[in-house]
């Protein structure tokens, strides 16, 4: 008690949680990378066009990883998002060709994603199976459905022109950015202000204690996976709308990109820790580096090497921050 009074009598100091320190450090790294980019390419790097490109290319990861962060917080993995995205994109293309109005086709495709996510989460939580295996099963299912439905080819012709409406650029602001901002704000709210998110953290920290303290683990994990399925499907639809092509192999490596973004933002792969804000910063770091490499004419496959190294460094930096800085 006396300590508390002492504290209050002192000059109020800005205090950070561990997550705050983490996010601040990552934000510092983002700024650093941004400064490096500006020095290397002073003419083009700080233009609105460049910033818009970085933002647009990061939307698919930010949208999907908003839910993936929650999945990781509950201590599970979702390897199926790339498959779900491809499946929903292909189905969306086929639905519009079949004559459904675009909004209905989008909703139907997202429902397919939701069903996949729901089954995924339900099997994992109800039958207590490792998420790695079950989401791998659904990766196979959804990628297989995408391949069989599109017959292994990309669907480019036959889609009505108003498919593009979903990802229009309205007065210089592409709609995907708007979606990403809205969705990440929703998930920031969910993560910070709802009981649901606290239950997710509790499950990730220790699923047994969570269950014994009366948390409905099946409900929480299933909802988290359903959200991830819906958002992965939405990402697929946005990609189809942006390029007017539905391809069974679009969104390659989305699951790894999402995990890298989340881990860069301080999410623990074993669960119980992580923030949506950190994930957004992580995704921006990832895509700023990618953009700089694009300007430097680094080939796309060499970028994978850099991604791998960044992933390892991110984990090491996170560990160091958590170990050295006690907050």
């Amino acid at each position: 008690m006396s300590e508390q009074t002492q504290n209050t009598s002192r000059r109020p100091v800005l205090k950070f949680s561990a997550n705050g320190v983490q996010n601040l450090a990552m934000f510092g790294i983002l700024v650093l990378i941004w400064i490096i980019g500006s020095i290397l390419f002073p003419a083009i790097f700080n233009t609105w066009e460049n910033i818009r490109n970085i933002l647009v290319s990061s939307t698919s990861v930010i949208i999907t990883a908003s839910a993936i962060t929650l999945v990781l917080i509950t201590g599970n993995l979702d390897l199926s998002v790339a498959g779900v995205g491809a499946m929903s994109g292909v189905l969306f293309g086929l639905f519009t060709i079949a004559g459904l109005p675009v909004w209905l086709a989008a909703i139907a495709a997202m429902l397919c994603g939701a069903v996949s996510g729901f089954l995924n989460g339900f099997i994992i939580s109800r039958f207590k199976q490792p998420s790695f295996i079950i989401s791998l099963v659904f990766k196979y299912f959804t990628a297989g459905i995408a391949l069989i439905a599109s017959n292994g080819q990309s669907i480019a012709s036959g889609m009505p022109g108003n498919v593009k409406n979903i990802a229009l650029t309205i007065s210089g602001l592409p709609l995907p950015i708007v979606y990403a901002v809205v969705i990440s704000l929703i998930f920031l709210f969910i993560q910070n202000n709802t009981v649901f998110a606290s239950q997710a953290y509790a499950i990730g920290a220790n699923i047994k204690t969570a269950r014994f303290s009366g948390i409905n683990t099946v409900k929480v994990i299933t909802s988290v996976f359903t959200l991830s399925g819906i958002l992965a499907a939405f990402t697929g639809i946005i990609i189809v709308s942006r390029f007017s092509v539905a391809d069974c192999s679009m969104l390659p490596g989305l699951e790894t990109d999402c995990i890298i973004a989340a881990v860069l933002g301080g999410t623990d792969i074993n669960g119980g820790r992580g923030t949506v804000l950190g994930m957004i910063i992580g995704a921006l770091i990832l895509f700023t580096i990618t953009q700089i490499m694009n300007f430097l004419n680094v080939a796309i496959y060499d970028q994978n090497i850099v991604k791998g190294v960044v992933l390892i460094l991110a984990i090491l930096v996170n560990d160091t921050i958590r170990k050295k800085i006690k907050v």
Partner: protein
Amino acid sequence: MKNISKRSLNSTTRYNIMLFLVLVAFVVLFTLMNPKFIAKYNIFLIFRQNLPIMIIACALTFVVTSGSIDLSVGGVMALSAITYAALCVKGVNPWWAIGLVALLGVVIGIINTILIEKLEIPAFMATIAGWLIYGGLAYTVCGGPNPIAKPEMQVITILDDKATYVGPFPLALVIVVVVVAIFIFLEKKTILGKYAIAIGGNYNAAYFSGINVIKMRAIFYVLCSVMAALSGVWQVARLSTADPRCIGLGAEFAALSACIVGGANIKGGQGSIIGAVLGVLLLAVLPNGVQLMKSALPVWLQWLKSPFLPQVITGIVLLIVVFINYIIGRGKHYE
């Protein structure tokens, strides 16, 4: 006492027998549907196509049983295939090139050990990063996305020439049998198998009972990477091109699925080489047999003939296996 004598076979053996019976049942079914299925050509084809997954799955079983995971095998396969081709084009003797590629596998295995055991990065993340890095390096060595298809590297293609027979058996079958025999020897007759199960069952208990955990895990990672590297060479021999875009694509998940179907527990502590081999065979026989059923399929099952079915079949088999394990209570210490 009665109970014990009744359950004289342990759960792994019983599981393997069950898996074997399922495999035999499918082989009989497919043969009845289309006698061509059992033809020599088809059987040898299955072995030639699945040799890489089979030898990787053998080594991966050790890794998974010891409670770790290695997802970098696909990248290692691509990198080693390209390195092998590049060395051959440079004029290195193909057999020396194979040795150097195996050495590359050893180095990668040691890197994995350092990342996972010394720096304590979760195995999943470390090997995903490795997969990205080695897969990217494959393109870099190749100098772009265009495959290397020079006549110099085809010296070794004799390995997979359809005419290359050892006695009455094709080389692929011989290689598979020898590698599997070696791994079963390592599992049953050396400490590796028991230590893998001990480490995977309870890491701390294994550590405190004096097992050099890091050394054992290092052996498993190195075995896994070496097998992946050698199967890269096999793919070059079989396809006679070294294509960074398709060699090793999805190999990590294919091998892992086979291990799981073969009764390995992803959390460690359970798993057997024989099971993994049976798993690979099951996952290989099913798509092949369904493709050959052709006319026997009713109209509403015609979509089964899609060439993209293997993925879905792998998913279905995995799901069934997971549920069977749940029902018979194997792997109860999940969670």
